[in-house]
């Protein structure tokens, strides 16, 4: 499958899950996964999902502006670099954000997130 198509499909799946059922993100991470969220470092699927489900908002909607991807090396990994907007329920203005994912292939033919770094982009 074309790498750009894989990246786009992953991004759609990730943010749709985030916006509808944040706990459902658990199967995209493994024990070795690392998230840096606004500078805070978290490791492992359980801890990452605990962080994401405890963010101080109930409802949100991500809208994606750009998706760039590149293969990361001989192990079949893929780097995905996203920018977009995050609208929180009840807030007048959307927040702008950038996020990078390093996806690694699973034996089942899917991908999991090994590295995840999220930053808000302040004006």
């Amino acid at each position, binding site marked *: 499958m074309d790498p750009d198509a894989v990246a786009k499909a992953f991004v759609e799946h990730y943010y749709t899950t985030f916006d509808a059922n944040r706990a459902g993100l658990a199967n995209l991470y493994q024990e070795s996964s*690392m998230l*840096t969220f606004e*500078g805070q*470092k978290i490791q492992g699927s359980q801890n990452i999902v605990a962080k994401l489900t405890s963010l101080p908002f109930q409802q949100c909607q991500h809208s994606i502006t*750009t998706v*760039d991807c*590149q*293969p*990361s*090396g001989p*192990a079949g*990994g893929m*780097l995905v*670099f996203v*920018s977009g907007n995050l609208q929180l329920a009840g807030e007048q203005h959307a927040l*702008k954000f*950038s996020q*990078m994912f*390093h996806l*690694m292939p699973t034996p089942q033919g899917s991908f999991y997130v*090994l*590295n995840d*770094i999220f*930053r808000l*982009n302040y*004006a």
Partner: protein
Amino acid sequence: MEEQVELVGRAFVDHFYHLFDNDRSSLSSLYQPTSMLTFEGQKIQGVDEISTKLNQLPFDQCQHVISTIDSQPSSFTGGIMVFVSGSLQLAGEEHSLRFSQMFHLIPTPQGSYFVQNDIFRLNYG
């Protein structure tokens, strides 16, 4: 105390943008034939092509000011992911541009790092 990957990330970022702002043609020393750059959506591969692209950007002088640097180990072979956000001031322009950039650094046998992956995006307000 800062972890090793954070130290490497910070040192690399300082070096990269110092070269970019003062001696752009020397950036070629940080890339190898397998290196990939995606610059505002345009995909470029290899030292010469990347160097040409960066040297041909439509401004002579610029200054990067870095706001955030996040680093993580990328895999089990010593690679490092570095995620940067900051501002880019072009000479003669009133307002600076905001940008985000990610680097995937791979260790060299000489104990340094080269840029295997580089993705740059401006962040429009």
